[in-house]
């Protein structure tokens, strides 16, 4: 039953992916100009002169004069037939290398902040729902809204300034300069931790607030249901009543959101990552889009599409596991 369901879902993904790759590529090609236009802009920016004849020649060599369909075919056939995602114009390296290189730190930061969000949001959400309209509820609500309202990048800049001013620590990035190339050691690990708390807090604050509110609302609905009242009447301890049934149901939105969590891992925290100078995938994607480095940008978008589809599938499966009322069809 479940096996067939998964196979069916996987087959459905194929046309979706094809459509996605075409749209991704077309959207990248939509803005006027191409990689060379942005290169010229960059060079004239620094006062350099660019000869139009040279540019025409480069365009010919890079194949930027070909019709969009041919360019698309070159790209997609490389991926399908040889697993080759193409060459990044700007970095002069294979796209796949560039993406993989950034994946480790991207995953580490995203997972760490996801865990931070859950670790903070779950207990607070439950507390707020159970002790509604108490002083604690209002206090957390206030903090939560504050976290939601302050733009991430402002918070990032402020925290960076604070660390620069009062802690005297190297700002931005994940390591101090002397540790970037150093092999792993205790010192490097401590250095990493002393840098990592800023992005985790910055990325975490807004997510926490949203989750607390969702959990609080869902749980409030559940807590008034007759089965909870019955369980309480039968003398089950309060914490057991709450944790065993209503919380499980209130968790549904957490799980169904996993579909969005995976692509968020790549692009969700771009602005924060740029401000904090984190070596994650977000800034690389943004840079690729700005400089119209089309193969890099296209591959990123395609990868995010794949991750969204996988995330959706995983969250559907988990939801079915968590809530027996949901069936595979």
């Amino acid at each position, binding site marked *: 039953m479940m096996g067939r369901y998964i196979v069916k879902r996987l087959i459905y993904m194929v046309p979706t992916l094809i459509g996605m790759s075409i749209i991704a590529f077309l959207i990248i090609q939509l803005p006027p100009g191409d990689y060379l236009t942005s290169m010229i802009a960059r060079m004239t920016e*620094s006062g350099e002169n660019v000869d139009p004849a040279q540019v025409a020649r480069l365009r010919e060599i890079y194949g930027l004069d070909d019709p969009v369909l041919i360019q698309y075919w070159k790209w997609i056939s490389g991926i399908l037939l040889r697993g080759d995602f193409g060459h990044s114009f700007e970095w002069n390296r294979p796209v796949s290398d560039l993406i993989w290189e950034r994946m480790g730190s991207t995953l580490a930061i995203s997972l760490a902040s996801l865990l931070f969000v859950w670790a903070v949001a779950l207990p607070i959400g439950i507390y707020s729902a159970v002790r509604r309209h108490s002083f604690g509820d209002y206090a957390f609500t206030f903090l939560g809204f504050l976290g939601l309202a302050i733009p991430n990048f402002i918070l990032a800049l402020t925290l960076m300034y604070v660390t620069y001013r009062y802690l005297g620590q190297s700002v931005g990035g994940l390591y101090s300069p002397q540790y970037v190339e150093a092999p792993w050691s205790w010192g490097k690990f401590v250095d990493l931790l002393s840098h990592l708390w800023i992005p985790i807090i910055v990325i975490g604050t807004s997510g926490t607030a949203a989750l607390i509110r969702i959990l609080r609302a869902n749980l409030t609905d559940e807590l008034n249901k007759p089965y909870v009242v019955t369980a309480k009447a039968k003398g089950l301890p309060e914490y057991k009543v709450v944790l065993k049934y209503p919380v499980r149901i209130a968790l549904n939105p957490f799980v169904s959101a996993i579909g969005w969590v995976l692509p968020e891992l790549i692009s969700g925290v771009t602005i924060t990552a740029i401000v904090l100078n984190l070596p994650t995938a977000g800034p690389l994607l943004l840079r690729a889009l700005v400089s119209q480095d089309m193969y890099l940008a296209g591959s990123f978008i395609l990868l995010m599409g794949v991750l969204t589809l996988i995330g959706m599938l995983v969250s559907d499966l988990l939801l079915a596991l968590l809530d027996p009322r949901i069936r595979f069809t």
Partner: protein
Amino acid sequence: MTKISRRAFIAASSAFAGAMVIGRGVLAAEAKESAYFQAQVDSGELPPIAERLPVNPLVITPTERPGQQGGDWNHALVGGGSLSMVVRYQGYEPLVRYTPDWSGLTPNVAESYEVNEDGTEYTFHLRQGMKWSDGHPYTTEDVLFWYEDIFLDQDATMGGHTWWYAGGEVGKLEVIDDVTFRVTFAAPNGFFVQQLAWARQDHMVLAPKHYLQQFHIKYNPDANTLAQERGMESWIALFQRENGLDDDNVFFQNSARPTLMGWMWQSAPGENTEQAIAVRNPYYFKVDTEGTQLPYFDRIVYQMVADPEVLLLKTLQGEIDMMDQYIATPANKPVLFDAQETGDFGFYTLKETAANVMVFQLNLNHPDPVKNELFNTREFRQALSVAVDRQALIDTVFVGQGAPAQPSIRPDDPLYNERLATQHTEYDPEAANALLDELIPEKDGEGFRLDSQGRRLALIFELDQTRTTFIDMMQLVVPMFQAVGIDAQVRSMDRSLWETRVRNGREFDATCHQFGANSGIAAMLDARYFVPFNGNALYAPGWNLYYTEPENPQAIEPPSEIKAQQDLYRDLLGTAGAEQQNAKMAQLLENAADQFLVFGVSLPPDGYGVVKNNMVNVTKEMPNSFGWPTPAPTRPEQFFKS
């Protein structure tokens, strides 16, 4: 200050024989081995210092005092963006280079050169025994490889290099022996050496034959297979990727290609997206006056930063040794000033070299005949110019720094033309109205002037939105134009759209830009606001094309006085000898003042850079330019930390 650089200039340029004597004397006796390479020399991986240096190394007289080898020069690059910044720190080693004060030229990779009387024949002498960073000799063979197999090779060439052409023909390069070659032109080519000294126009010292030939079909019949293995369609694309001569990003991302520069990549930008490191080149051809091989710094370490604000914080914290780009803005100066002590840095002055802070450019080749005629009327441009209250712009946008001026030459330069610099800068809306009443007297109900067809005369300035100072200024300028009945509007747009519509388009009314040059050699080489001759003269796309390709159907034949100006400029470029060059340039500027094609706001105020207090030999005042790639001509190889 000037005294020392002057002495350095004379020592280096006037007497190569003298330099040779000092060089030999110092060298043979006591050239010292670098601690950095000692182990490699001991194990036999590297030959000893005396065998690595050329017979006649270039002796550099340090700006303040000789130093010792060692240490890191800490830098940063913003974004995956432009690696042309690297040229400024380690990438400027042309045959002949500009002097630290940009007053002239001094030999560099070439030991000396001679020019004949009329500027048609240039003879260059390379250094005997000079080597690439992998130890392979650098000879005229490499020069010839660039000339024949890259520049003139039908497949490998990227075109361009206009300074190699005179009298409609490309210069002929002829190898005389291992270290001597001659370039002969069909007609005088007065600025050839100056052009070769311009940043990134020094391809003859960038193409190691022994490395690049493996990618060239002429030397390696399997080059196409090699390219396909690397995922490229043909050897041409691979060869371009490997030499990177025409794209800084490609050039500086290849750590495998040998170089003549002071530092070579250990990990190139892009190979590592967080940090790039360049280490000392064991074969670098320069020594100081005490016989220590340069550069002093063992390594240059570039942190890759995604955002200028992060760079600012890093600078405040003292992590950056020297920085005059990205963050050296008027707005950041107070912050940097306050942090001088905690960050342990000081300031140096950058002499701005742009012709103006912002140049208003009406499209003189507008496809609409009515607008075209109006824009080409000098009185119309004059009216707009006097309608601008420049002092208000300077006070608001540049915190009062600067004085009203048109795009022109700096007052302290011998070429200064007062009329060109100051005409029509007086704020006088009444005069503007009077002039406009002559040309387009009709107005509509809202007080806006109508053109000869009865349409409201809209003047739309299309701006690149990343140029925030332009947008700030235009916010103040629009009401000034409206006050004289011109319906001026501003459209700021994404850069790529701006590039398409303005730089490569013809349909725009007007735009604003900057750059150009405000002194001496630079103004002669980049005369964009005095004569329309290349794509940087945004105000006349059709006339620009006419200058280079009069036969092109897109080209527009300019009126006779502009044509005469273009001819004069062509003549100037062919002239050898500083005196005649200056005379012709003066005439060109005089004509530009008559024609008054564009107008501006103010000469740019001086900029600044920050440098750590322990850095020695950094010049306290230098031009800010790309052709003179700040601060490279002040010789970073002799910077060190005390």
